[in-house]
């Protein structure tokens, strides 16, 4: 299932999504500033593909995921799922669509209600949407548990009796219960040990194949994203800076940030011990991002125009999108 084949079958489209959080302080709730968590993101995910979303902490990737399943309302922008605008829907209208988009969280400890049994956690979606009788729901819960590799007799156990990997399986079963089309995977393996991480990745891939699932896979681990994704988007300080098919992005990164990011990953390959391209400085605060291109203070190829204007997110070559003046002939000339 390559990305190109179904590139026009868009399951979800985001248009100019912006999410700002006001920071209030003091006893009178005076505004101190705004965190620009997500700043004008436009993006589409095709049915059946995995879109990887990478970036460093605080770049807004998780917020974007939460906006996508409407856990957060965007300050601006449009989310279309199967052609329907999710943002304008009332809660009642949203309810049937809730089934179709689900989420898997990073922290396997806080993502499960500690006072509910596994059966109750997995079956909650069925209960909320009144799917089938009690007996049918119980049957379904067992089927889901088998699907994700949980022992059926642990249906009455509580989350604290499981290890991190097992809990993540419970979270996956909960997400699957309503037969979703899109699953936002928010760093689903980051908290797990490598050997367990591989089990969960395999499970996610198996499930995708079987149910033709679409994933938004959010992670800071570039190797995992490379492995699991069809296309990859790179985010920096609330903005997308590059988007391309996986092979294109990893083999031929164009944006200086992407290049630096890829260069920074230590590879477990002793033959290619490479010279690192080291990126200087820290990620600036999203409260006061730099003017112009957000990346310019750390960019080795920055030009005068970069600190002045914000480059647009443009299709550089087919299906390779980039936000950088280096690839804008007019700007470069000026």
């Amino acid at each position, binding site marked *: 299932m390559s990305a190109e084949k179904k590139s026009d079958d868009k399951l979800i489209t985001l248009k100019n999504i912006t999410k700002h959080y006001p920071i209030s302080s003091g006893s009178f709730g005076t505004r101190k500033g705004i965190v620009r968590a997500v700043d004008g993101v436009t993006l589409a995910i095709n049915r059946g593909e995995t879109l990887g979303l990478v970036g*460093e*902490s605080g770049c807004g990737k998780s917020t974007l995921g939460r906006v996508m399943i409407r856990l957060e309302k965007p300050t601006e922008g449009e989310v279309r799922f199967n052609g329907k605008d999710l943002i304008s829907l009332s809660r009642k209208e949203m309810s049937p669509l809730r089934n179709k988009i689900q989420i898997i969280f990073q922290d396997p400890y806080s993502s499960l209600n500690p006072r509910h049994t596994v059966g109750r956690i997995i079956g909650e979606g069925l209960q909320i949407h009144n799917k089938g009788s009690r007996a049918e729901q119980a049957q379904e819960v067992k089927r889901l548990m088998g699907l994700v590799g949980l022992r059926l007799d642990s249906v009455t156990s509580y989350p604290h009796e499981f*290890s991190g*990997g*097992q809990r993540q399986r419970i979270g996956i079963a909960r997400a699957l219960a309503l037969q979703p089309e899109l699953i936002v995977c928010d760093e689903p393996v980051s908290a797990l*040990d*490598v*050997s*367990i*991480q*591989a*089990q969960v*990745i*395999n499970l996610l*891939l198996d499930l995708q194949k079987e149910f033709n699932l679409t994933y938004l896979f959010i992670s*800071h681990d*570039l*190797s*995992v994203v*490379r*492995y*699991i994704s069809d296309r990859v988007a790179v985010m920096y300080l609330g903005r997308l800076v590059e988007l391309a098919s996986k092979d294109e992005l990893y083999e031929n990164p164009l944006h200086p940030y992407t290049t*630096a*990011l890829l*260069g*920074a*990953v*230590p*590879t*477990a*390959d*002793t033959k290619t*011990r490479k010279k*690192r391209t*080291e*990126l*200087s400085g*820290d*990620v600036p605060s999203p409260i006061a991002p730099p003017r112009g291109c957000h990346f310019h203070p750390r960019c080795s190829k920055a030009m005068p125009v970069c600190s002045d204007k914000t480059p647009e997110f443009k299709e550089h070559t087919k299906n390779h999108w980039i936000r950088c003046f280096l690839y804008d002939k007019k700007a470069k000339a000026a």
Partner: protein
Amino acid sequence: MPKTLLEVKGLTTHFFTDRGVARAVDDVNFELLEGETLSIVGESGCGKSVTALSIMGLIPHPPGKIISGSVHFNGTNLLNLSEREMRRIRGNKISMIFQEPMTSLNPVFKIGDQIAEVLKLHQNLNKKDARDRVIDLLNQVRIPSPEERVNDYPHQMSGGMRQRVMIAIALACDPKMIIADEPTTALDVTIQAQILSLMDHLSKSTGTSILLITHDLGVVAETAKNVVVMYAGRVVEKADVKSLFDDPLHPYTIGLMGSIPGIVAKDKKIRLDAIPGTVPNLFDLPDGCRFSRRCKDAFERCYKEEPELFDYKGGRKVRCWKYEEA
């Protein structure tokens, strides 16, 4: 041939709790040469951090206790030293860097004072000399405008900067050895790269040995010379980094490599070769080889008898019955 700086022999540390005895570190042996970077790698709960704290004599007691073994550092057995003598080594001859830069610095003291503290303690520097040396150290760890940053509190700095301060504290007294316990795990990739290259540079320029504890095979491949792989409190494999990655011996090491995307499986068309099951409970370890219940190659003997650390060609060692004759 460089001298052996640290020799850990038969180190065994247990934790005595209400739930029973956790055999966190069990008969661990390895040695670290002068100027070398040795890496201990393993998943959470394998005993790598407890090993580090045992060397430093910082195991919380109770419930933890070093049961047996020896830790020879420059010829003296650290485990025989009194607490007072040990304090003269900590932060001076052996120093340590921790995983969480956000919480490892005391929030109520200026970073300059926190660095100066070790200098005053171990080198009896006066206030002015200490300050000069602090600025010099901040320069070494590449913190910009150190004259101003000495008066910063930790919360005014980013995670990467704080980890640089931790490194400065560790370097302050020109230690023979630095134990770095997951020094980059909490950091973003670009910052991780900065810190790793800084550590690499400093160890080369000062000749300090580094014991690098990590779960990240990528970090190991890029920084270490020799590697110790630990599993459930035991050393399961020892090798130089190149042989380990080219030809891993122990089924656990092989499984670990197969689990990480990009080493064996480069694309999702190739399935990750995950290790089934989970790490055994340290309170209730299985009979025989501790890895046997998750091992694809396990046979009868593996479930009953625990293998010793067999020698393998090229000076390598592996704890697996498959290599008994080798």
